């Protein structure tokens, strides 16, 4: 407080500003991958999935196991994604489909219950000690005076690619049309012969698979334990609200926004304190623009 902005900026070397920009975008892209599964499920199914973090965590564990068995990171990534997508489909059919048409509160309670079950299952099965996923390559490149790991850049690009693939899937192709029609008018979609219950299961499975993929991609950075889902998913929830619940483009924009903001904030304060800025943005959004920052003003 009280320090002129010019003086503040002068204190920070230009290179560091650029490094934090790269960092912010990379973190933002990874966050976008976690958040897009969440926002997809909310936007299409009206389900706030409190078990998203546990699907993320279980994905990482399946990754750990597959990596140990095969030694190949990319195989682990694919196996984890598919396994958790199947688990997501099973969860949807057994737990969420019977609640279709009920009060949304029931689905919140159901997913919250699932999250507790999965988290404690992981604790029982894998124990409290964190596991490590070895990144597929360990090279660095020089960003000014800093050794920047290639792997972080690759995750950001992969996240972008996965989100891009999701977008293409929704935009083109019959199933994408079915999903979008179901989002807009579930009853009319059924009247057009679209098998809405199966469409919803597929959407939940895709969201779950995306959570698992982010869990594996993230494993090398954070370590895998039963509670690893909490942090990221909390942030993903912020992103989903700030981006406009259910709005895929908005969530991506919000992810990058939050990523950059925390990154810049950590030039002045510690990264742990930088999180406070995200909550401030969340509260301001809820107060002044509850439909989300990154959505066009409704007519």
């Amino acid at each position, binding site marked *: 407080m009280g320090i002129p902005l010019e003086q503040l900026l002068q204190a920070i070397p230009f290179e560091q500003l650029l490094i934090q920009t790269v960092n912010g975008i990379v973190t933002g892209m990874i966050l976008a991958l976690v958040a897009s599964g969440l926002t997809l499920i909310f936007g299409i199914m009206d389900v706030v999935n409190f078990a998203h973090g546990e699907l993320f965590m279980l994905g990482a564990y399946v990754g750990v196991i597959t990596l140990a068995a095969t030694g190949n990171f990319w195989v682990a990534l694919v196996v984890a994604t598919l396994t958790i997508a199947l688990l997501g489909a099973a969860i949807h059919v057994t737990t969420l489909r019977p609640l279709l048409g009920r009060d949304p509160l029931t689905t919140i309670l159901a997913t919250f219950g699932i999250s507790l079950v999965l988290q404690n299952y992981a604790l029982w099965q894998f124990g409290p000690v964190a596991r490590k996923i070895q990144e597929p390559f360990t090279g660095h490149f020089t960003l000014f005076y800093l050794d920047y790991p290639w792997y972080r850049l690759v995750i950001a690009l992969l996240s972008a690619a996965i989100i891009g693939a999701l977008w293409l899937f929704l935009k083109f192709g*019959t199933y994408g*049309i*079915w999903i*979008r*029609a179901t989002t*807009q*008018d579930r*009853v*009319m*979609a*059924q*009247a*057009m*012969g*679209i*098998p*809405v*219950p199966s469409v919803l299961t597929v959407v939940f499975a895709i969201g779950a698979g995306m959570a698992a993929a982010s869990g594996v991609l993230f494993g090398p950075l954070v370590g895998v334990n039963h509670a690893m889902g909490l942090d990221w998913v909390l942030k993903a929830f912020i992103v989903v609200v700030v981006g406009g619940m259910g709005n895929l483009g908005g969530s991506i924009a919000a992810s990058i926004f939050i990523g950059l903001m925390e990154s810049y904030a950590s030039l002045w304060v510690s990264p742990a304190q930088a999180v406070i800025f995200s909550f401030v943005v969340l509260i301001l959004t809820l107060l002044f623009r509850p439909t989300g920052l990154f959505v066009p003003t409704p007519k």
Partner: protein
Amino acid sequence: MTLGNASTDPLVKVEDIHTYYGKSHTLHGVSLEVGRGEVVGLLGRNGVGKSTTLKAIMGIVRPSQGEVLFEGRPITHLPTHRLARLGIGYVPEDRRIFRLLTVMENLRTGLDRRGVTDARKKQLLEKVYDYFPVLAERRNQAGGTLSGGEQQMLAIARAMMLEPKIILLDEPTEGLMPRMVSQIRQIIDVLHHEGAAILLVEQNVPLTLEASQRIYIMEKGVVRHHAVASKLRVSDAVIHQYLGV
């Protein structure tokens, strides 16, 4: 459960159905039938349960009692999407266009189903674009940007994509300009000549009497009157009794 005999059973038979919205009892035992290729009008004042009857046939509202039969088989417990695939097309009164989907995508919701060859898809699309040239012009435009009349055409065209044996048409001319009304009137005739059955709910009595072969008149959740359309006149006492204002 009886096995239907395709040649003698009516296409759709509604048998004494009762429906509720929460605690309010909306249909009190509605019965009617529609034969193959037949255009049947369903008239009645506001709020008597015409739309609810169509929704009950489509499985959108579940009857608490009574049965709906399609080609002689009970369909009351089938999910709505199965009914659509069986050959029941639905054009709701508020049109319910997928507003963010393009015109083409709206049509594809019904067109992209198993068992339809690419050649057949092309044929079906050409047919509706032929009837509704304005839809061809606007094929890449979002459904929500169309005018009311254009949305009505799209709603009908979209139902046609299912190649339905019957179309449930709920107030297709409501709020349309006279020119649009006569276009809708023509398309009803075209569908009729192609062999589709139509259950037509309308407020426009002269149009319904002209377009239909038979008429049902509802009052307060039941069918009160049933007549051959050509025997009814707009000036008849029954029309005045049940529809006059």
